[in-house]
């Protein structure tokens, strides 16, 4: 699942923090307290409580049927010697760099291209964003059809005389991971684009005017006005991308299941197959804990910095 975030406080006109002390710090109206506690309770029941159990399972050996055995940190020790874990972690990093980097870069490029309100721009934005709302199941089917040995891509290559490049894209260990990144990007770029569009909208036009008066070229305006102004959006996009990369599961699982022989295995797919195919639920939970720690670490380091800046 992708994550959407609003650009954080980038308005120069943001009110000073002290303005928020509407009621003073000491007495909180009970209703306000209830406003926090009710959603928190719902989340506690459906997420925190099950998650706590998941964390406990990470310390056990469990086949899902007989009673679990407590093994302490045994699962984490096993990871240290697990080749598949190591290669899955490597692929996750590669995924982070390729999928993350490309979706940020191409999303920004698309946003810059489509930022001006002009005729037809709504259609182009809609076209880029449409894959975001397409269900994963449907997405997987389309791309399977494209990557089939006699699927659309190979037929296309054949018809333009590149028949020698025909390939079993998803079944070849050298291409599987990259073949899976493409549909993931297809779904992500429109989404990143929208985040950047919102950010670009918020840039004060006066800054551009001033830059123009100073004789700055389009490139210089981009370099010295747009990019610095997008800094806070960049941070949001970065954390969104990191989270999405670490949790990327659905597209990979439905297209290759991490195969052939682990060549497109990510931490998330390895976790799923370990837990639900090999029925090693303890080890699978331990892998999930690793993914969580990585994602939480990234987002926390960003948020803590953001909070510090806000104070």
């Amino acid at each position, binding site marked *: 699942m992708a994550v959407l975030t609003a650009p954080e406080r980038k308005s120069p006109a943001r009110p000073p923090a002290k303005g928020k002390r509407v009621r003073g710090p000491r007495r909180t109206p009970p209703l306000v307290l209830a406003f926090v506690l009710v959603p*928190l309770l719902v989340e506690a029941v459906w997420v925190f409580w099950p998650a706590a159990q998941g964390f406990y399972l990470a310390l*056990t050996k469990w086949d899902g049927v007989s009673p679990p055995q407590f093994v302490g940190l045994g699962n984490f020790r096993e990871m240290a010697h697990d080749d598949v874990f190591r290669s899955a972690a490597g692929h996750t990093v590669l995924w982070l760099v390729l999928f993350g980097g490309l979706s940020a870069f191409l999303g920004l490029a698309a946003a810059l291209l489509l930022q001006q309100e002009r005729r037809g721009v709504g259609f182009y934005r809609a076209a880029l964003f449409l894959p975001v709302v397409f269900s994963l199941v449907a997405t997987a089917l389309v791309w399977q059809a494209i990557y089939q040995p006699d699927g659309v891509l190979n037929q296309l290559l054949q018809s333009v005389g590149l028949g020698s490049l025909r390939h079993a894209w998803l079944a070849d260990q050298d291409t599987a991971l990259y073949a899976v990144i493409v549909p993931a990007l297809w779904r992500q770029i429109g989404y990143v684009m929208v985040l950047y569009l919102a950010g670009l909208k918020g840039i004060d036009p006066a800054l551009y005017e001033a830059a123009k008066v100073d004789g700055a070229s389009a490139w210089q305006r981009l370099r010295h006005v747009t990019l610095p102004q997008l800094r806070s959006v960049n941070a949001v996009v970065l954390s969104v991308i990191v989270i999405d990369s670490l949790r990327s599961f659905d597209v990979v699982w439905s297209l290759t299941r991490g195969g052939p022989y682990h060549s497109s295995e990510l931490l998330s797919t390895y976790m799923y197959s370990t837990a639900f195919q090999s029925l090693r639920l303890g080890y699978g939970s331990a892998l999930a804990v690793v993914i969580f720690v990585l994602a939480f670490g990234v987002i926390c380091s960003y948020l803590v910095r953001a909070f510090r800046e806000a104070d």
Partner: protein
Amino acid sequence: MTNHQPDRRRFLAGLGAAGAAALLSGCVTSTSSGKSSSKGAVTLQSNLSAPQAKAAMQDLVAAYAKKGSERASLNTVAAETFRTQLPTYLTSANPPDVYTWYPGSVADAYAKKNLLLDLDQAWTSSPDLKRYSKALNSLCTSTSSGKKVFVPTTYYWWGMFYRKSNFAKWGVSEPKSWDEFLDLCDKLKSKGVTPIGLGAGGGTAWVASAWFDYLDIRINGAQYHRELLAGKHRFDDPEVRKVFDRWQEVLPYFDPNGAAVAFQDASTSLLNGRSGMMLIGTFFADAAPKNALDDIDFFRFPIIDSKIPLAEEAPVDGYFASARTGRYDQVIDLMKYLATAEAQEIYIKGSSGTVLPCNPDAKDAGTALVKKGRAHVDSAVEITQFFNRDSSDALQPTADNALTKFLAKPKSIGSILTDWQRDAEKIWNA
């Protein structure tokens, strides 16, 4: 609500504490002792989601309702979902009563964990089950308790399937021995046909296990094969190595896209004459056009060592029940009905008709193909089920990994087998 704690890290650390652990373990992992309701119809959870099979199951349930006072309610789930959820179903507090699944080690694994209902009552009181073959009797008996835990209803067989008209067109005939088989492959290749179709891609990697199973039971015998799958031999033993040496002899004749397409697509290639033959179970015919059915034929996987007792792969399908059902009497009644010739004939008539009934009195579909299939299975001294059925669903992914890797890199077989053994040990020790 410990969540009010401001410090997330401390909260997490707290979870590791033994006290919390003991508290938590009470909930998630408990196989709660509740029983399912004793009211209402018996729930029958089915993975037969192919259109014909689903319709056949509906006919069967309707016929059961007409027959007596009891009712069954059918719940069909996509096969893939069913497979991953089965452990959850069986351990849930209010489980479905009866399930479609497989006998042998797979069922035995659940029986060992006391999840399956003792069906002795059905076996001793049903006139039909009393007449079931000895082999089926032992197949459905739990090795741990000695009780019957399964009611078999139909079986099918694996073989080298081909189209008669295509073989006639190419001027080739069924081979008997391994050498004749290699000759046949050569001839097909020279005619520009892909000799052997596979279909171990697109989510059906398990199809490749049929080749492993067959080569192993032809070279090392069914006894060794079962022991290997139970962890009594090692995958990096020289016996297993021999299997792959044989496989390498025919590997050049395999469809190069064999590991990239699902078996259904490989079946289409076979029927269209793009590939010559395919080692597959009769279920592939479910997707075949009706007019092609009469043209389909098969031959026995070639004999490699005539000293090895003849074994064939003929998986049995049927039903088991949850130990925690609250409708014991109704379940037994339904099981006895499923074992009757009538019930099995209704299913065979409604489905694609390529399966054989377990009831000795039940009539099969009567086609030439099915008659040949029955003789094929009857002539075997030993019957194996299939890789996952003779081991466990959890061991199957290790085979899928090893075999797809072998298909892509046959030269690195040494390291593949070492890895396979290591992965399998993790499953056996889990």
